[in-house]
Every structure is written in C-alpha cells, then in structure tokens.
C-alpha cells in the first residue's frame, strides 16, 4: 500500500522525534514534554534498576489520570506540563566568569545575609576554583557519619547502594496516588537526598553545612527520604537563605520522613525561592508534599521559614500512627508584593495518647495573600489525643490579606483540641515608639516581625535562626513607604 502524503509526513515526524530523542539522551537535557518514554529515559540516564523504572512508570500512569487541583486561595496560570523539560544534568555550566557579571542587587542581598564570597560565586553560578575548604569539610563530615553507620547521600546513590531501604520506604508516607504533584514527582524526580540513621544512633551534627553547599545545583523535582530507625535522632536542615533564582518555574518536591519507635526527627526548612518582581512577574511556583510518619513514642517536628516563591502550596504533615507519638509544626510564612502562600499542616492522630502542636505565624505585606490551612484529625482509636493550635497573622498595610482555615475532625470523645487565632497589625504607634528610641522604620518593622515570629525562630538551630532573622528583614524591605 502506498503511503499517502499525509501518512508519510507523520511518520517522518515521529522518526525525527525518535532520532532527536536518542541523540538527546547522549546530551544533557531531555526534550520537553512528558510521556512513558521520557520517564524511562530519566530512569535510564540515572542508571536505575528495573524496579525503580517500573515504580516511576506506575507513578506516571497514575498522574496521567489525575487533574491538576484548583486551590481556593491561590491564583496563577497553570503550567503547561508538556512544555517542561523533565531532566537536565544537575551540574549546570557556570554562567559567569566572575562576580562582576552578576546582578548587583543579588550580590547586595548575599552580602546582607553574610554569605561568604566563595559561596556567593557558587550560588550565583560563577565558576569556582576548587574550594579546598568545603571539599575537606564535606569529606571529614562524611567520615564522621560513616563511623556511626549513618547513610547520607543523594537519592540516586541510595537507589543503587541501598535498594532494600529505598524499596521498603519510598512512597510509603507519600504514596504515588497521594496528589497530582506527588504523582508527578514520583514519575520524574531527578534528585534529592537520602538519610538513614541506624538504631540507637544520635546524629552528632545538624545535617546542614554539607547540604547547603550542594543545594545550589538541585533540580525542580526533588525527592527526599529520611529514615530514623528505633531510638535514633536527627536534625535535618533543608534549603538556603540565599535567594534562589531559577529558570524553572515549577517546583514540586516530595519529602518523606519515617520515625520508627522512640526516634526523633527535626526537619527545618528555610525557603527563599525567587518570589517574582514587584509587579509579580517571574516567580517560582512551589508545590511541595512533605509528610512524616511517627511510630510508637516517636516525634517529628517540622519548622519552616517561608519567604520565597510567587505561589507556595505546602502542608508539612504528621501521621501519628504509633501510641504516644508527637507531631509538631512551627511555621513562619512571609508574603510581600504579589506573593501568594497557602500553607499549613495536617496532624492525623491514629494512635493513643498522641499529641500535636501547631504554631503558625503569617506575615503579609504589599498586595500579598497569606493563608493558613490546617487539619487536625482525631481518629476513632486515638483515645486521649491532644492538639494545640495557634495561628497568628500580622498585617502590614491595608492591601494584603491573611486567611485562616482550621479544620477539625474529632471522632474520639476523649480528644482535647485547643485552637487560638489572632490577627494584628503593625501599629503606627509601635513604629513611632521605636523611631523615638532611634530605630528607623525599616529596622522597627524587622524588630516587630522578629518579635512576632520568636516562638518559631526559637525552634530553629542557632545558625539557621540568625540567617532566618536577616532573611525576614530583607523580605520585608520597602514594604512600608
């Protein structure tokens, strides 16, 4: 049978596509769009075992059936998922030869944050000579951890080196079916971190310095898995206070924490993605699924300081499965200009005598919208469950908004739930009072905001807290005219 002109053209197109496809595999970026072949290609590029490829494909199939959710309190143009490239090599080529070529405004911010020159170069994408210091730091760091049997590596490495652990836990806390973004992440995640603390081990350091150095190059679909075995403890710091400019608009990370019996995980985040300019253009959309599972007598604390992104959608949650387990959520979310944040937490009480604490501080300035959405669910079996929630909002000016949506579902009569909410404004009298003591308005606002956020800042590890304070200050600069 002779081809029709039309059929011929079509086949040629596909051929061309396939051809282009394979050459691209050799190079470092995959073509835009998402289908099973792309998922396979990602897995192949990362030399993953068969089971992992299958796991991703299943996630892709689930995602294909899902519809992107509508969120009541954030408005944005939805990304076109077929126009995104789902893989590019993690090591980007340096964009600049020296710091002189970098946007001075960005450098100014780095300086205010007290970031070292070497690190500034890294963050801004400037070519760096091998920094002996940080390399050796990272190495000694790894050695100390290894002595204790702690595994701390990239998730890709873990898939190859510790397949049993990954197989056992990946997707158990955030299943692929959980939500649209989690399914997408499961199909295409490019990298992220893996951490395992063996039984009875107290991780001797905050897992931070090393991480921060490596943070600059991480991709848009990160996957993190932290497992604290019985009676172990770890404090984990994620993120970076330096403003992250990224050409990738959509970020959809998944973080899973597993605290086995009597274990404790502290997970702290400082997030400062580019929020968009003053007119609200060009910011990052950040859709994150973070969830922890608590077994018997264990504890998970989420602490977060969110100042970035144009749109943030994020609910670090705890499933309090084991009896006597404890979940905590401490959050500061700042929105300025046209930013929109919809954050909060879910505390799911399944076990007996489970306890949860939620402290949420929302600060809105400019035209921004800041929503807290929290769910406290006490299941039938969860006798004597207790929750305390406190949601405070601080408004600056008249054009921004703060919204609180607490949902409570208690199916056990013994539950004790307390909820407190306040909304306040930075008063002109407060500012004048500070002014009169020699403190200018910008500094006065920083002081008042830090005071407002203190309960949460206190939960951060010391060095992080200092950075977070400066970050709050910078995020609100120019918000009062």
């Amino acid at each position, binding site marked *: 049978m002779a081809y029709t002109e039309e059929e011929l053209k079509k086949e040629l197109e596909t051929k061309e596509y396939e051809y282009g496809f394979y050459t691209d595999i050799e190079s470092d970026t995959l073509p835009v769009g998402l289908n099973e072949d792309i998922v396979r290609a990602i897995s192949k590029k990362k030399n993953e075992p068969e089971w992992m490829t299958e796991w991703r494909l299943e996630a892709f199939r689930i995602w294909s059936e899902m519809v992107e959710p509508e969120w009541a309190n954030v408005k944005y143009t939805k990304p076109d998922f077929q126009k995104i490239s789902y893989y590019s090599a993690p090591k980007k080529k340096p964009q600049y030869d020296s710091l002189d070529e970098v946007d001075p405004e960005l450098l100014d911010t780095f300086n205010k944050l007290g970031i070292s020159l070497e690190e500034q170069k890294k963050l801004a994408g400037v070519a760096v000579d091998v920094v002996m210091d940080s390399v050796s730091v990272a190495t000694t760091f790894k050695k100390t951890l290894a002595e204790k049997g702690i595994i701390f590596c990239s998730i890709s490495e873990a898939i190859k080196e510790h397949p049993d652990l990954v197989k056992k836990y990946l997707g158990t806390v955030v299943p692929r079916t959980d939500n649209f973004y989690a399914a997408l992440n499961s199909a295409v995640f490019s990298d992220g971190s893996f951490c395992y603390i063996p039984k009875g081990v107290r991780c001797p350091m905050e897992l931070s310095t090393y991480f921060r150095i490596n943070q600059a190059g991480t991709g848009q679909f990160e996957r993190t898995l932290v497992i604290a075995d019985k009676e172990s403890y770890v404090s984990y710091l994620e993120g970076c206070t330096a403003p992250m400019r990224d050409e990738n608009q959509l970020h959809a990370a998944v973080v899973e924490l597993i605290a086995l019996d009597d274990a404790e995980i502290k997970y702290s985040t400082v997030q400062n993605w580019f929020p968009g300019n003053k007119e609200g253009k060009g910011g990052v959309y950040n859709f994150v699924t973070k969830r922890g599972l608590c077994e018997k007598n264990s504890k998970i604390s989420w602490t977060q300081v969110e100042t970035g992104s144009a749109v943030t959608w994020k609910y670090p949650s705890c499933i309090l499965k084991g009896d006597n387990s404890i979940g905590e959520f401490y959050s500061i979310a700042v929105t300025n200009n046209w930013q929109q944040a919809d954050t909060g937490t879910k505390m799911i009480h399944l076990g007996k005598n489970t306890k949860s604490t939620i402290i949420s501080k929302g600060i809105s300035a400019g035209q921004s919208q800041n929503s807290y959405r929290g769910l406290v669910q006490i299941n039938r079996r969860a006798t004597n469950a207790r929750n305390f929630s406190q949601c405070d909002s601080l408004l600056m000016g008249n054009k921004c908004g703060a919204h609180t949506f607490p949902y409570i579902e208690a199916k056990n009569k013994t539950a004790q739930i307390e909820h407190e909410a306040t909304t306040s404004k930075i*008063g*002109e*009298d*407060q500012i*004048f*009072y*500070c*002014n*009169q*003591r*020699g*403190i*200018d*308005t910008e*500094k006065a606002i920083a*002081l*008042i905001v*830090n*005071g*407002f*956020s*203190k*309960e949460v800042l206190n939960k951060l590890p010391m060095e992080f807290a200092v950075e977070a304070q400066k970050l709050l200050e910078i995020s609100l600069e120019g918000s009062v005219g």
Partner: protein
Amino acid sequence: MLKIENLHASVEDKEILKGINLEVKPGEVHAIMGPNGSGKSTLSSVIAGNEDFEITKGAIYYEGENIEELAPEERAHKGIFLSFQYPVEIPGVSVTNFMKTAINETRKARGMEEMRANEMLKQIREKAEMLDIDRKFLSRSLNEGFSGGEKKRNEIFQMAMLDPKLAILDETDSGLDIDALKIVANGVNRLKRADNAVVVITHYQRLLEYIVPDYVHVLLNGKIVKSGGKELALQLEEKGYDWIKQEHAV
C-alpha cells in the same frame, strides 16, 4: 537647647496647638501642667516628630537647628527622648533586645561602633539597679503585660540607658506608687547634669517635690497661658485651673 516659637499644630484639620512659645536652656527643669485635653501630649509628640501632627505655623529649634524636617529617629539620635504617657507594647521583643537595638542604632547614626556586649551588660546592670528593676523583668516582652507603674519605670530605664540631652517625661508619675515615684524621681535627678534638660508633664505637685522645676507652665487649650516658678504648681494644686480659665476666658 530647645526653642519653640509660635507653634501651631493640627491633626486631621483640627488645630490642637495654637501658638506655643517655650524656651528650655541646658541645665533647666521645666514643668508643664494643664487640664486634660489641653495639648500637653500633643506638644511632646510634635517635638519628638510624630508625623500624625502637622505643623501649620511656627517652628521648633533644637540646638539652634530647625528640626521640622527631621525624622523622629534623627531627633532621637540628636538626643531628644520622650517618656510616653502610654508606652506601647511590642510582643516578643525583650526589653534588653529593644535597648540593644536602640543604643546601637543611635551609635551607628553618630558614627560610633556598636557597644560591646560586656559594656552593655554593665550599663544594664547599673541602671536597672539604680531604678530598682529586677533583671528578670528585662527579659520580658517590652511593655507586654507590664503594670502601669512598671511601664513608667521601664521608660525611665530606657532614658537612663540612652542618656538624652533633652528628656520629655509625659505623666511619668501617673501609675507609680509612692515608693516607685521616689525611686524614679531620684533616678531622673541622678541623670541631671548642667548640659541636659528635662521637661516634665504632670498633673500633680507631688512629683515636683522630688524633681524640682525651675519653671512651671500652664497649658490651656493649646497655649501656654501662664508661667512661673515652682510655687505656681502649689497654687494650682490648691485652686485647680478655674481661676486661670477665667483669666483667659475661652
């Protein structure tokens, strides 16, 4: 040090100060008295640079300079201090932290280095002791949940820490018990030097027994209608304001 000439000020088009004249020289203590709503707090706010009030006429000179265009913090850096009638609460900010910020911002503006931590600590210890303030108190959130008297004592503590040239004390005595009044007044007296000045606003003669004024002024309906020595305060205590009101029938 301070010279106010025919000062008129209004808020939302309502004129509150209607031609104030006042001169305060270094080393002097002035008392301003007057009925409720006569404009005493407004006058102190305007001197401190509160932008809620608009100066419509006249001028304020501080150390020979017209300060109308100066922001409140700039006036503070130059040594103007106001003890508020109603001190404001700042939740989550400790007295110590607030003081540290205020001192270092002021030093920065004066081109000085930040105060060293042990120097700061020494100062805090000294001044807290002088005013009989429990140090635990200094770790509490500024004015939050403070009793009326505690707030006033804390204002004077701040004054002691900042060591201003011109201090305006707006009803610092109200809310203080008898013992506290003595302690605070003593504190103010110990801060008194030949090169600084104090303006006390009060309703009661009692404070003036401790902080003895060189001049007493009566503010009535936005104007200083009578000035005299400390005996004027005694007269007012005895007779009230009616006789002055009659003299200046409104």
